């Protein structure tokens, strides 16, 4: 979707503000927000692409007004409400009012280490050869799906070069909607700065995105 999360090249922000000796979390509630978000994916059964869409699919003014972990919490609440794991009246009351919905699994302390170490690899066995090869010129499609996508707006319609063939990976556009993994070939596609930003671009700048085959067309 074309939302406020898609920030590449947008001109409305000020300087980057590094924070010396920054703590991992800036408030106790951020710790808990982080942990419940990670832990709830197991009983919730949603995937990372669904989580990303639940965070980004909100009005720009809301996305920009919320801090990072406030967005995480808003996304988590949405997934839990949609799946019926909790009710909005329970959030308002601050306590459980109904019996729990049966869930397949929950995260035990004993399983934390293995869960983190395993992660969620996205590479899958290809079912056909790669249609593109390194060095080939491709154009990022000028598409604007209202659903989840990982093709940033600043490269759409622009011509780049396939730099690396990264294998076949879970396709977020399908996975986010519950339509399955639908693995697709993934490429690092590199764009010249002038192709993205015009003649005033920094000399020598090159920018890449990782783009799945359905985002690309032969140039």
């Amino acid at each position: 979707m074309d939302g406020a999360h898609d920030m590449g090249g947008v001109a409305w922000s000020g300087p980057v503000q590094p924070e010396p000796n920054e703590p991992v979390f800036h408030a106790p509630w951020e710790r808990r927000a982080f942990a419940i978000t990670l832990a709830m994916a197991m009983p919730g059964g949603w995937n990372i692409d669904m989580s990303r869409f639940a965070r980004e699919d909100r009005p720009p003014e809301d996305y920009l007004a919320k801090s990072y972990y406030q967005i995480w919490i808003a996304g988590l609440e949405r997934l839990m409400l949609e799946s019926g794991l909790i009710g909005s009246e329970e959030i308002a009351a601050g306590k459980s009012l109904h019996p729990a919905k049966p869930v397949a699994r929950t995260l035990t302390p004993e399983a934390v280490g293995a869960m983190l170490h395993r992660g969620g690899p996205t590479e899958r066995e290809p079912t056909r050869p790669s249609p593109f090869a390194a060095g080939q010129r491709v154009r990022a499609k000028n598409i604007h799906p209202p659903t989840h996508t990982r093709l940033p707006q600043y490269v759409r319609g622009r011509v780049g070069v396939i730099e690396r063939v990264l294998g076949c990976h879970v396709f977020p556009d399908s996975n986010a909607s519950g339509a399955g993994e639908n693995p697709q070939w993934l490429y690092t596609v590199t764009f010249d700065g002038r192709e993205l930003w015009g003649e005033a671009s920094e000399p020598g700048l090159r920018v890449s995105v990782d783009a799945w085959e359905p985002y690309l067309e032969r140039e």
Partner: protein
Amino acid sequence: MTEHADHHHHHHHEDHSELSETELRVRALETILTEKGYVDPAALDLLIETYETKVGPRNGARVVARAWADPAFRARLLADATPAIAELGYAGRQGEHIVALENTPRLHNMVVCTLCSCYPWPVLGLPPVWYKSAPYRSKAVKDPRGVLRDFGFELPDGTDIRVWDSTAEIRYLVLPMRPAGTEDWSEQRLTELVTRDSMIGTGLPKRLDEAS
């Protein structure tokens, strides 16, 4: 230990007046999820402890120092970073597919996630606030030299910048250049020069006189 233990016991009015709406909301959620048996507070504590004390940029610094000290490891890292990094015991969530990017006198690499906050957790830990912020996510792909000025340094004119936008599940780790004058340094000592920002591409390794 942890706040979840207090959640159920500190509902005094003065607490509420000091708590933000967000704090109350997160406490309410944790209470509900714990009461329903969806989350185990001990598992939450362990997740937090892991990323506050175990997984962080010290891991990445060990990878970089090994690459500086051991040419065979460096070659493995640049050829296929995920198994090379796993040799040091770092793997898993948000680092399932890692690519290492070599800085040279002619080429400086910088990593961003314009769409959210993708970051190589097993080697760098959780991302800093500025990495997730609108200024960095918007500016890095268009004005990376301006970003570097925000961080207080300039690259030489002859150095090209290559920006990697982490739009898929590939995670990028910059291999900065080994500082001159460290030829006789041990791998252990080299780790002291490796900063987090030098592994994102928004900084350089420490100067020799800055190392402890």
